[in-house]
């Protein structure tokens, strides 16, 4: 069985990330109203060259678009930290 975390990783591969870190935050949210729907809470840190030139809002939109339907099914909440790789100049 593929876990939600693996599915997230598979989708994010489309962004050619240099680093992806996913933390399952579910324990912190156990028992709160939203958690009952079964969707997980995750914290995501991702570094991708595709973020270069995009503002924060656009970066988040890109991540949400890449995750697609996972956002509406298996993910209940997602905290995102994103960054572009440091430039070499």
């Amino acid at each position, binding site marked *: 069985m593929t876990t939600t975390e693996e599915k997230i990783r598979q989708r994010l591969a489309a962004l050619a990330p240099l680093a992806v870190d996913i933390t399952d935050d579910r324990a912190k*949210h156990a028992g709160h109203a*939203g958690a009952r729907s079964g969707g997980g809470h995750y914290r995501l840190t991702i570094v991708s060259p595709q973020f270069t030139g995009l503002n924060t809002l656009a970066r*988040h939109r890109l991540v*949400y678009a890449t995750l697609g339907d996972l956002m509406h099914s298996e993910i209940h909440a997602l905290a995102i930290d994103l960054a572009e790789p440091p430039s070499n100049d």
Partner: protein
Amino acid sequence: MDVQQLIHEQVTTHPVVLYMKGSPQMPQCGFSATAVQILKLSGVKEVFAVNVLADDEIRQGIKQYANWPTIPQLYIKGEFVGGADIMREMFESGELKQALANAGVA
């Protein structure tokens, strides 16, 4: 009134609108609590807070309105700003304070 129209009216009538889970006094989700805290620290005088848990049509409709899948959502002068992570980032960089000052609400 259709829910999209209702949301449009809410975000254009009030200078600062926060769609959240629970109320500012009693947030029902950590992300919403963070959003409220950030607005307080930014010195916002008045926030029109909409509890999406009290209205399922708004809860679903707001995701389409800004094409943004999560709650909370902050709007300043009718413009979608972002969710809790973006608010935190903008708060730390000073951008949020600037945006609120430009809108004349902090």
